[in-house]
């Protein structure tokens, strides 16, 4: 096992991780040495995908209170209101900072930054650049990182385990893909920014690499996960690949149609129609399909249709160019002429690593940012275009706090750290020696089928119980009957996929258990057997941790500052 040392480690290089890395280098004036670890090449993280945009209060007729209220209402009142109020104030600062680092924003004729309307926001406050908003943010941050000197990049290192000693963060065990060697990083602070978990499901907007690793790595290290039952489905994703048709289209006039040619949203959200909160639109679409008013789309997948023609050719060919290209390139459909087959896809984790408003976990030295972190901002449902600015803002704050922590702390060394790491390494080595009968892809298929069938948009007790039992059986198969054929050390993705699958199993269990316990419907979590929100019993966060007896769920009250829970109506 090789050892590398840095002052601060950043795990993950999506928006949150890159933003954190840049912040550590910036506040320490390039003094702290930063190790940047990612299982893909740094710039290839899934934050390149977002088309829609980033929400921030930047205009005269908008206010922080309005943005906070829209967010809290969208969250179905599960958001911690102090967190929301604090972070929405940082969003415009981040937009401005990124602009100063070179990021293009679409501008109005007078040179001011252009804004558009997005689902469940009350005023237009989404800034964008054509429809490659995430991509340009990613490239700007990656480019900006290259200005600094005091960092080392570790492209294509898969993180495996966090090493803790004396109740403090001490190191991170990784597997270098190109050599197959285990590498232990020792450092004073760690920012976890490993992104989401969409690949737990069959139909998802997420990249193949979005496998929820960070949630599992934290959980195994004893850090609790919060609000994990809340997973968002994005309404309009193109069949059969799950590539989104951005929500912004609907802000510019695109409509949803069932097989009767009817704008069915009028039955579900008469005032906001297609721009109601995501969970409402997604459930409406699936209800239409289930009640026989859907279409058979590509590869026989059931869907409804998005009519983007009302948006007009001018806009489609400029600010929605990526959408038009995607529809033409990937499914051979021309949205200027034809209807686009869409259905909801698993998209975003509202829950995550339990952090406070400062992004600190219960382990000194460990911070989390971005989609994997749950400071309590998104509650039970995230608003469109809130994630990008939140990734930036949490990246910045986690970076700052990690830097301050690392500057104060003396480097210590202990042989126990190495021994712990060796013990962890053996656990992963063992996977190659089981020599059972089932390859990781087969097992993975089974898991995502379970999640799709029982832990989807509509849930009930019977289904969740069945899912939990089958996930636990799969865990046993994984540890006793796994087969990994490829015995090469070099870039062995069968092994790394098998390790990722192990992470997915842990995360699936937490989600299913949290969903089973929460006997109400709130935001993205919908129980057909408990279809109403129940503030009396359930206005609280679920917190799951590992104990010797398995997973334990506890609850914590929601912070309410200004806005009393009320019915969410759009």
């Amino acid at each position, binding site marked *: 096992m090789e050892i590398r040392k840095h002052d601060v480690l950043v795990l993950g290089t999506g928006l949150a991780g890159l933003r954190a890395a840049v912040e550590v280098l910036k506040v320490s004036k390039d003094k702290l040495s930063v190790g940047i670890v990612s299982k893909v090449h740094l710039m290839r993280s899934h934050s390149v995908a977002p088309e829609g945009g980033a929400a921030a209060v930047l205009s005269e007729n908008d206010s922080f209170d309005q943005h906070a209220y829209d967010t809290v209402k969208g969250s179905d009142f599960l958001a911690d209101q102090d967190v929301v109020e604090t972070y929405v104030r940082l969003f415009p600062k981040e937009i401005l900072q990124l602009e100063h680092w070179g990021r293009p924003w679409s501008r109005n004729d007078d040179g001011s930054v252009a804004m558009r309307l997005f689902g469940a926001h009350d005023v237009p406050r989404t800034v964008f650049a054509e429809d490659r908003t995430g991509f340009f943010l990613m490239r700007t941050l990656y480019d900006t990182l290259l200005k600094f000197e005091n960092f080392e990049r570790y492209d294509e290192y898969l993180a495996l385990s966090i090493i803790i000693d004396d109740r403090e963060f001490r190191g991170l065990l990784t597997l270098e893909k190109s050599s197959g060697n285990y590498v232990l990083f020792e450092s004073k602070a760690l920012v976890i920014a490993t992104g989401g978990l969409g690949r737990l499901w069959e139909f998802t907007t997420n*990249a193949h690499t979005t496998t929820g690793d960070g949630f599992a790595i934290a959980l195994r290290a004893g850090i609790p996960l919060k609000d994990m039952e809340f997973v968002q489905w994005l309404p309009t994703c193109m069949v059969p690949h799950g590539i989104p048709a951005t929500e912004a289209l609907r802000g510019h006039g695109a409509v949803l149609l069932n097989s009767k040619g009817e704008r069915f949203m009028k039955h579900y959200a008469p005032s906001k129609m297609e721009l109601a909160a995501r969970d409402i639109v997604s459930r409406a679409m699936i209800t239409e399909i289930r009640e026989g008013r859907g279409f058979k789309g590509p590869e026989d997948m059931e869907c409804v249709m998005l009519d983007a023609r009302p948006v007009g050719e001018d806009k489609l060919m400029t600010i929605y160019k990526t959408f038009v290209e995607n529809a033409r390139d990937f499914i051979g459909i021309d949205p200027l002429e034809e209807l686009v087959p869409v259905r909801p896809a698993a998209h975003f984790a509202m829950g995550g690593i339990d952090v406070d408003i400062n992004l600190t976990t219960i382990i000194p030295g460990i911070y989390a940012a971005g989609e994997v972190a749950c400071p309590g901002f998104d509650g039970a449902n995230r608003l469109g275009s809130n994630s990008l600015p939140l990734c930036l803002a949490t990246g910045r704050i986690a970076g700052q706090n990690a830097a301050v922590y690392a500057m104060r702390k003396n480097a210590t060394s202990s042989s126990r750290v190495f021994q712990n790491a060796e013990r962890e390494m053996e656990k992963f080595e063992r996977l190659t020696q089981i020599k059972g009968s089932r390859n990781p*892809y087969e097992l993975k298929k089974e898991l995502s089928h379970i999640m799709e069938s029982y832990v989807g948009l509509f849930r009930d007790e019977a289904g969740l119980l069945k899912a939990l039992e089958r996930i636990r059986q799969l865990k046993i198969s994984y540890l006793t009957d796994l087969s990994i054929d490829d015995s090469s050390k070099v870039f062995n993705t069968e092994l790394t996929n098998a390790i990722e699958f192990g992470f997915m199993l842990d995360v699936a269990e937490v989600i299913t258990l949290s969903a089973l316990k929460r006997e109400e419907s709130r935001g993205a979590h919908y129980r057909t057997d408990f279809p109403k929100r129940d503030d009396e019993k359930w206005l609280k966060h679920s917190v799951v941790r590992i104990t010797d007896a398995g997973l334990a769920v506890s609850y914590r009250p929601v912070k309410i500052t200004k806005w009393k829970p009320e019915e969410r109506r759009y």
Partner: protein
Amino acid sequence: MKWEITLRVFRFDPERERKPKFAEYEVPVDEYTRVLEALLWVKENIDPSLNLRYSCRMAMCGSCGMLINNKPRLACKTIIKTLKTDVVEVKPLPKFKVIRDLVVEMDDFFDKHRSVKPYLIRRNVQEQENPTGFYFQTSEEVRRYIQFAYCIMCGLCSSSCPIFRSGGRYLGPQALAQAFRYLADSRDEGFDVREKILNSDKGVWRCHFAGECSEACPKGVEPAEAIQRLRRKLL
């Protein structure tokens, strides 16, 4: 509609094999199957030791560049039906060193990109790092560079460039196009610091305008045009 194709794939594990070989797989496809899905089908159903890079599967992350029927393309953007052949041959991007199968070493490519200082340079660093208000930029000014900002760093352009492929120090179309992306940005003030490297023997004057780069680019960046405009700026 479903049919079968033969996928001929370059295989090489330098740790254990002396030279590369090709393996052939029969793969079921339909009108939506892309080369990426065909390769993953093989990995998941026939031979899990087949290795490639992939992530976003929507032509945004730049992971899956490879030679498909001898043309540099993204596997996730290449629908098999459009290739109009029953045999699809897949090889790693040329010029890059093979790590394993379709996975190539890209460090040098990333270093070359970094060497052109691909970030916004401002003389007033105080304002840049502690912003007080947006820099002024019109939509017309955005239009002058935005096409060049689409680069996903897939490497298709550089690996298709005959000069870059012949080895040596030439920065290649990707890096040069990114230098232009910042020089064409009305907010940038870094001409002086980039001029030397662009004018050097690694820089723009090595380009022979073969034009292969622009043809290969899956995002419409047009690196050849960027190089031409860079030359005009440097003259």
